């Protein structure tokens, strides 16, 4: 099992690895983005790394609580607590 970055990641790809998340998080400048996309087309290792991170991100988003109405007792608790604090609608 690779234990160091140099064992696991080709030297030319270390910076790219760092940039992939900047790209996925919309933090990359346009000129950096162009260079990154070119590298991803040519480098199967980094293209696979990008795919891995995209899939991870989709998996994380999938556990997001669905939008909806808060349970009725939450509203009741909040209004009761506010009333005790002097709130009068």
């Amino acid at each position: 099992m690779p234990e160091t970055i140099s064992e696991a990641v080709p030297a030319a790809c270390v910076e790219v690895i760092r940039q992939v998340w900047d790209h996925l998080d919309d933090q990359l400048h346009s000129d950096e983005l162009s260079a990154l996309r070119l590298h991803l087309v040519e480098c199967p290792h980094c293209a696979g790394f990008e795919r891995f991170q995209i899939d991870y991100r989709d998996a994380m988003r999938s556990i997001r609580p669905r939008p909806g109405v808060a349970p009725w007792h939450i509203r009741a608790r909040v209004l009761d607590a506010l009333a005790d604090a002097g709130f009068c609608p």
Partner: protein
Amino acid sequence: MAFEREALPWIDDVYRFALSLTRDESDADDVVQDTYLRAYRSWHTYLPGSDCRRWLFTICRNVFLRSRERARPTVELEATDADAAAGGVVYATAVREGLEDMFSRLDLGPAINDALTRIPEPFRSTLIIVDVEDQSYEAAAELLGVPIGTVRSRLFRGRRLMQEQLLDYAKDAGFNIRPALVEQRRNA
């Protein structure tokens, strides 16, 4: 009243955000109640017409963190950009284990929820806000009260920690054994 008109309509969103942070309905109930109490008491600090939802989310996040500090001391780890490159080691390990497609192939929802409870602050909140709630760096920085660069470095560390945990889970569950290999062993 302005508080009723501007703050109360966001109770659904605040509840969902609290649930994202706590991963527990009972804890989320407490956080929502405390959030609105604090919001009411500090209503004079709110700028009318500004983003009330974000203002409430900030209070909610602080309430949550205070509750966590009471329950468990915060582990302060210095996150560096080296974690970004270290993410490459996690991926390389996944490839060697035949798990490079684990996020798309497996239902890791329960494992993700469990892993999130083990991620220390401040990385946990940052992961929830950006990776689960899909907020921008700018929104996360405002919610967390830290510079954007800090959000970035916390994400690098947090994502690596999450992926290491999920990789260990997938290996322990035997998901690295491909169906073809299982069949081969059965027929051996």
